[in-house]
């Protein structure tokens, strides 16, 4: 069914025992956030398509034994959602710890220290130590671009950059290559960023990056402040002005 044929209705559902009304085309995450509920997420970004990459927004939905990522599930009539439980807290904490253990996130010397969504979430979720052994992978830094740097050590594979570049800028510089822990962000199918023919140097990927993986060149520790682009608002303005 094409989107134009989907009938948007108003549904009522329960989130954390609260009766909530929402549009049927909204995701559970959108509705939860709209109602001021805390559900952590790193790969979701307002104005971009969701891919359910980070698994931090997992919620419990009555009737399903599985945990469900709230960013990719639409609300339905009489749905009962639990966003806070001991089980969820345990999984969310574990996910954050696994992200830290998988690459080399050294906050104290990171250019994004103090301006990092991973760091903020870890603090909020009470992650004060990592129970998993660090992998300390030897990964590279691509500083070939004249204005920006890609540091794989800090990448959490959320693919926000991939989507921003593809869906908003329309350049599609970025892709994810490889599998599992060996997955890497690549530009132009594996050419150094500085040699990319598709990159427009717009900086959207840099400013949308939740961590210190994509940063402005020349920044010292804690100096990389992300100017979060407002894609959804831009889209609304453009559609209302007839563009």
């Amino acid at each position: 069914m094409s989107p134009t044929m989907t009938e948007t209705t108003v549904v009522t559902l329960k989130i954390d025992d609260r009766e909530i009304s929402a549009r049927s085309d909204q995701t559970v995450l959108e509705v939860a956030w709209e109602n001021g509920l805390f559900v952590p997420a790193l790969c979701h970004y307002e104005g971009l398509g969701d891919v359910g990459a980070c698994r931090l927004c997992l919620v419990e939905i009555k009737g399903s034994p599985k945990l469900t990522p709230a960013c990719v599930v639409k609300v339905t009539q009489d749905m009962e959602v639990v966003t806070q439980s001991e089980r969820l807290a345990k999984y969310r904490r574990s996910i954050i710890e696994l992200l830290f253990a998988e690459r080399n996130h050294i906050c104290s010397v990171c250019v994004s220290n103090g301006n990092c969504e991973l760091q903020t979430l870890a603090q909020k979720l009470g992650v004060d130590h990592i129970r998993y052994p660090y992998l300390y992978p030897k990964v590279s830094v691509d500083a070939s671009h004249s204005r920006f740097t890609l540091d794989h050590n800090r990448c959490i594979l959320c693919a926000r950059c991939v989507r921003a570049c593809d869906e908003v800028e329309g350049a599609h510089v970025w892709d994810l290559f490889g599998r599992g822990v060996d997955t890497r962000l690549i530009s132009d199918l594996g050419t150094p960023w500085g040699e990319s023919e598709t990159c427009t140097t717009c900086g959207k990927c840099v400013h949308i990056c939740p961590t210190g993986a994509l940063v402005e060149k020349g920044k010292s520790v804690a100096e990389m402040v992300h100017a979060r682009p407002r894609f959804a608002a831009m889209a609304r303005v453009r559609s209302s002005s007839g563009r």
Partner: protein
Amino acid sequence: MTKQIMIDPVTRIEGHAKITIQLDDAGEVTDAHFHVTQVRGFEKFSEGRPFQEMPALMARICGICPVSHLVASAKACDTLMAVEVPEVAANLRRVINLGQIVQSHALSFFHLSSPDLLLGMDADPAKRHIFGVAAENMQVAQDGIWLRKFGQQVIERLGGKRVHPGWIVAGGLAEPLKAEQRDAILADIPEAIQRLQRTLGWFKPIQENFREEIRAFANFPTLFMGLISKDGGLEHYDGKVRIVDAAGKVIGDNLEPADYANYIGEKVENYSYLKSAYYKPMGYPAGIYRVGPLARLNLIDHVGTPLAEREWVEFRELQRGVPLSSFYYHYARLIEILFGIEKIQQLLETPDILSKRVRAFAGPNRSEGVGMSEAPRGTLLHHYKIDESGLMTWSNLIIATANNNMAMDRGVLQTAKQFIHDGKVTDGALNRVEAVIRTFDPCLSCSTHAAGQMPMVVDVVGPDGKLIERTTRN
């Protein structure tokens, strides 16, 4: 019976070390060594990182003197960028570096060494600490704590926090100075001077009580090395290198920091992770030299601030030529604190100090850069190489303490020979062996850029190499 004495760990120093003392059949000292027992590897794991990250990353070498590493590292980065740092930024880097020197010197003199100086080398070890000092002479302890706080607050007021401020960056400073920051520091200057002068008034006469220590604490001829300002004055941030001999005669002047490999050699000894630096033209071990407050006061032509100048003149009259005993590091440290306070005032009172021009922006424009500055403990050098995109490919650090390594090692032997006889090893004798190390105020975690365990150990070993006695302090 022959034996080996081991002091492990050595206490009231920064970092981790041990000392071994070798005795012969008659119980006399035949040999002694100072071992630094830790290794960390900053030179290695900085490889592959963008060079602009180096100041903040290298500062993590040390929590006592992060500013010294920030300064030396940022200077190396300025060279890589091929930029001239705006004058105001250079002066503000000077101010924060002096704040670092004041606080570190105060820590060394008051918190670590004043227990020996006030209570005596043979005092009860349970009382040889800053609280013991406070119980005996509250004023000395309060002045020490206050002066350290003053230095730490200079760092905090300028850099935003006391330990690991991120203010100093490649090309200059992250932010200009605000009037309220300046005024807050200036308001404390008169009290800082008063407290330091009171300390000098107490300390200068009591040096008489330490004649034996003065005679035995690394009191031998060595060269002295340090930075010097254009007009031959005391300099901690910039300038050229001067080397003087044991008589105070200049044997190397206006040496470029970038050419350090021509005049500084580094030797690895199998008993320590800390490399021994030596003056290359004289070879190893004849090229033994010392750095730090004693060296700096021994090689300058004048100080550059009025009150410290007066004290320096008196200091240089201690001995014909230049004072050689490392015991005088303590005295030199106090004079440098005075200089630091006066100089901070001078610099903050310059009219354009609030200028907003504090940072030069540039990419990587050279493949190699050297930064040299004077850390509290002496000359500090960072040398970096980068690839075309500005990623680090190689680094070499010569930390102040490495420059003093040979002198510390020999100082331990000299002191042990003076105070250990007939196989009798008293606590006072062992404390003196540690105290000679403390005069240098070594920062061992810095100097090996290293991770460690506890402070220090002294081993006494027999001629057959068998461990006979080990003194450890936990």
